[in-house]
């Protein structure tokens, strides 16, 4: 194998890549109930026992399918969130619209004294 002269960044990058591809192969594709409960907690969604049951199967299938991407060698590829290649125009860092408290509160399920009302957070 021939190594081209690579910058330290590229080398670190390749290394991380190798690690991640290794991890990827090691992940068990079956999602257990505990994992479903954990991610539902992270996502702040209450799930019932029967929902956990069906989600476990569905998520296992879908996430297992993602393993297909492992067929692709991406060791020299930088990630892309390509949405567009154009450089966005810059603007002044200044408030353009403000002082619209009434507009903003109008849709709140509960508000009082120009504030949102939520259940008690601290004892």
């Amino acid at each position, binding site marked *: 194998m021939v190594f081209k002269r690579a910058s330290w960044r590229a080398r670190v990058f390749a290394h*991380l890549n190798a*690690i*991640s*591809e290794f*991890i*990827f192969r090691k*992940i068990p594709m079956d*999602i257990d109930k505990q*994992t*479903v409960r954990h*991610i*539902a907690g*992270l*996502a*702040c*969604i*209450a*799930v019932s026992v029967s*929902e956990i049951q069906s*989600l476990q199967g*569905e*998520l296992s*299938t*879908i*996430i297992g*399918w*993602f393993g*297909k*991407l*492992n*067929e*692709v060698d*991406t060791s020299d*590829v*930088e*990630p*892309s*969130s*390509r*949405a*567009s*290649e*154009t450089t*966005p*125009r810059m*603007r002044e860092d200044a408030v353009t619209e403000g002082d*619209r408290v009434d*507009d*903003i509160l*109008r*849709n*709140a*399920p*509960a508000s009082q004294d120009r504030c*949102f009302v*939520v*259940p*008690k*957070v601290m004892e």
Partner: protein
Amino acid sequence: MTTELTRFSIAEARTKLKAREVSAVELTQAFLRAIEVANPALNAYIAVTADKALRMAAACDERLARGKARPLEGIALGIKDLFCTRDVHSQAASRILDGFRPPYESTVSRNLWLDGAVMLGKLNMDEFAMGSSNETSCYGPAINPWRVKNRDRALVPGGSSGGSAAAVAARLCAGATGSDTGGSIRQPAAFTGTVGVRPTYGRCSRWGMIAFASSLDQAGPIARTVRDAAILLRSMAGYDEKDATSADRPVPDYEAALTGNIKGLKVGVPRQYAKDLSADIEALWQKGIDWLRMEGAEIRDVDLPHADYALPVYYIVAPAEASSNLARYDAVRYGLRVNGDNIAAMYENSRAKGFGAEVKRRILIGTYVLSAGYYEAYYLKAQKVRRLISHDFDTAFGEVDVLLTPSAPNAAFALGEIVDPMTMYRNDIFTVGVSLAGLPGLSVPAGLNDDGLPLGLQLIAKPFAEETVFRAAGVLEAAAGFTVRPESWWTS
């Protein structure tokens, strides 16, 4: 007589309005009446803004009388519920946004009103644009005006812009806005015999569109003809300082691109898309190739080696972005609130009740692929393959001007026919690649299958080459001569 007025294309209505052969109020009334008759059966509109429409139309008539017509003066449109419209129902067909009335107008809809268009109401869609059949809407599914020959089984209009596509096909508006994240304009257009355009990412402002996946979401029109779609896109598109990702470049006159001349145009046919095709789709694709060749285009095979990976990449990237975007629904600032013992329980209960099953599924997938330990294996990996997919298209457009593919792997299917999420996701197989690469794509109706259901062909070009897409689509439309309409069974 008045329902007859709904038959005019936007281009025809524009001429008749300017010549004062018909008034904007008459046109609007005709559409409102058609909606009243059809909507109980089609469920395309989830809010009708009749008073507002008639007020807007009256103002249009005044301008027309003064000879001050703007480009869309008096043209009555439906708006997908995903676009925020000031003080009007805007919920992305989700219960979590119950009662939400935006205090602002989306840039795309505002652009349409500034050009003289009239708003008829808000159109049904899959909840948060997550779906390919319009069945995930909290308002129940929109129904396809098309049916299988001699059968009265209800078919889906596709999704997520299913209400938009159904309304345009049934002539319940002159045209409609849609949004396309993974195919949500092009697939329903194909299912309903209409023209749907997803422009280049950044061509339309996303400001005021309820976000699903921010690196993929794009607004675009659904219309009856290629010319109408060109007219609408010109008004919708443009730079907006409220959306930093909108493109700061002039909007061309897309109608002027409809020259009917494609001599020497290089058309690429990606053979990777030919795998496991049904016979009717394959035959239609071949017809499309032949039509373009007969008009003087040069046909070439092109290679998109990573085409097979577009679907899994999309179903990692889009849910990941969605899980982040939909974190804003906290039952504090707007929408549905379900109380709990503490604030965490309030969040969890509200989100459990407010989101439907598919939206929850995608939020959970997104949360999973972004969570500690899995981020690199899934999300980062998907982003890398996304680059390879984009690169495939870049390479192809080094050789050809436009790509021709089917729009969807099948015609419209029956309500409730597809229940497995993975099978549903496969409906996006020809559209997600374009979305991931941020390219413009258009679906044009090109024929009927043996069941008498419409099928579409997709044209794709490089970023900001919408004019090429329109030019080729105009030629395909003329060659296909697609003039069949669904029978209006909903009137009986």
